[in-house]
């Protein structure tokens, strides 16, 4: 992979050039003492040293609400698929969020490729940046998602006076050539990058107490663990943990119709397995009626089900759920570690 250098004083020019291109540029901005992704009007709004954005950049690929079909009722039913996709450059995405997008890519392609997701995806450029100041709830280092070699067009690392830029795609290379002032990276700068990454890895406060690959097997043996009941007793079933999660992609589908009862649209919107009626069917049967079964389902989906289906873990360790949960029970690391401890005592 080729590496270039952008001097810090030249970064604003790169960002502003992108903003003035045909794409919408999205990056982390300060918001009430926290950070949130949003459209940039000027390079000065962009934060590249943020710890964690409140919400993942997922909404640029899978919006919270998205029209799938527009229809018009009448003699002849007219229904047309709606596919909306704009050029978006996500600027400054952390590796764990990139790993999460890699999972979404797999989930929305495959045997039943999703035209809405894939059309958006094709128009999204990802400029990543290594996270050097992890959030106190994050545990990416122990999941192997604190850094990434794949899934980006460009990847930046802050090495003090400049950024090392790894080029991940021809598209990334083109953007650099067209819009940025760069020079070749020296060997010592690449060494500095490794050092920065190593230093960051040491800063994580939360860690999974086992290797991520061992999770499916641990969960295989943990179905009847009392942990699920103990923790879920405090659950408010608010769904915050799934709404802030970069890897959650479940959705509901509904119709909306105009007051004239003619034009309308079918849309999907985010849904979550922690919400009470997620598995409810007509007749009143609810296949995960109590918070314990929902809580367990979420943990299993994170640590086992998606792994088995897509070869990728359903959690990238960003820590957003832990920050969002008022009951302080949502962090998968905490539950997984407790299960591991139970196992240790049992064996």
């Amino acid at each position, binding site marked *: 992979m080729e590496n270039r250098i952008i001097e810090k004083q030249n970064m604003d020019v790169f960002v502003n050039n992108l903003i003035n291109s045909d794409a919408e540029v999205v990056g982390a901005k300060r918001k009430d003492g926290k950070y949130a992704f949003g459209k940039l009007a000027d390079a000065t709004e962009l934060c590249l040293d943020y710890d964690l954005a409140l919400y993942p950049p997922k909404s640029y690929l899978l919006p919270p609400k998205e029209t799938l079909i527009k229809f018009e009722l009448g003699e002849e039913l007219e229904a047309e698929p709606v596919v909306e996709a704009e050029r978006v450059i996500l600027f400054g995405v952390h590796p764990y969020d990139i790993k999460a997008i890699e999972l979404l890519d797999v989930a929305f392609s495959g045997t*039943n490729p*999703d035209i*809405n997701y894939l*059309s958006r995806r094709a128009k999204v450029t990802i400029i990543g940046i290594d996270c050097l100041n992890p959030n106190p709830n994050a545990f990416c280092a122990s999941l192997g998602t604190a850094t990434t070699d794949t899934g980006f067009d460009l990847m930046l690392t802050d090495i003090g006076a400049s950024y090392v830029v790894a080029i991940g795609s021809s598209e990334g290379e083109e953007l650099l050539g067209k819009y940025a002032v760069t020079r070749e990276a020296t060997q010592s700068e690449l060494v500095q990058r490794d050092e920065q990454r190593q230093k960051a890895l040491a800063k994580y406060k939360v860690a999974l107490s086992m290797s991520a690959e061992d999770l499916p097997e641990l969960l295989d043996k943990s179905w009847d663990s009392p942990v699920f009941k103990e923790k879920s007793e405090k659950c408010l079933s608010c769904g915050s943990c799934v709404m802030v999660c970069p890897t959650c992609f479940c959705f509901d*589908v509904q119709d909306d119709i105009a007051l004239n009862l003619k034009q309308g649209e079918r849309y999907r919107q985010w849904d979550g397995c922690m919400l009470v009626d*997620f598995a409810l069917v*007509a007749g009143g049967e609810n296949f995960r009626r109590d918070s314990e079964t929902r809580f367990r389902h979420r943990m299993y989906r994170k640590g086992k089900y998606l792994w088995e289906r897509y070869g990728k873990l359903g959690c990238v360790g960003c820590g957003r759920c832990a920050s969002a949960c008022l009951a302080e029970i949502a962090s998968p690391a905490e539950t997984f570690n407790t299960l591991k401890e139970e196992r240790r005592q049992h064996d």
Partner: protein
Amino acid sequence: MISQAIPEASIYQPRPAKLIRTEAIAEREKLFEFEFRDGGELGHKPGQFVEISLFGIGEMPNSISSSPTKNCSFELAVRNVGNVTSALHGLTEGSTVGIRGPFGNGFPIDKLKGNDILIVAGGIGLFPLRSLINYVLDKRSDFGRLMILSGSRTPQERMFVSELEKWQERRDMELLETVDRGDEKWTGNVGVVTTLFPKVDIDPQNTFAITVGPPVMYKFVVAECKKKAIADEQILLSLERRMKCGVGKCGHCQINGVYVCQEGPVFSYAEIRKLEEAI
């Protein structure tokens, strides 16, 4: 940057189909026969389902009740329980609906061939089973014995009564019926569907038991099948779950790691024995 090609069509876009006939089945249940506006066929297998759309109201999963041996048109039998189902019940012939599918695996016809078939239907479980029953009857020589145990709550809630009567008269199949609660006119068996099991004699080696009914029924039916020494691999069930997309994306139909809309809705008991929360 992503290598996956963008598909040409949307998996959420239904095909317009015309309602060509309706027929009352019971108090809350009605049969709907459809034909695609484009003249094409559905091309389904017994046990598969479709997503049916009434634009402006919504979309819902529904099993296909007709056999694929019936050409061109297809039938859905629907119980009126909520938004989409009640709107559907109000439709007049000639109306257009949207259809996606067929989805799901369906019954494993190839495995069933040459074997005896013991069908256990509870209530509207007969809706998807009717597709299989008529398929077997249309290809009678491909299969061994056809036995049906059918249970309804009351005589008024028997589904497809005229068909039941026809089946009752046929010599190439056996039909036993029961109701949970009888009335003055009912002379048949009274009791839940499992009370019919002692009345059939089967050869467990060559028999597939296929059951569809309300979730509560499954444990009891499986227990009876096991009493008759039918192997877990030869006990087949169709599971109902909430479904939104039908194509393995929305997550609603998940049982553990399994997507019922993809790997199901038909499972053998051997497959779901290991699945917590399945039955």
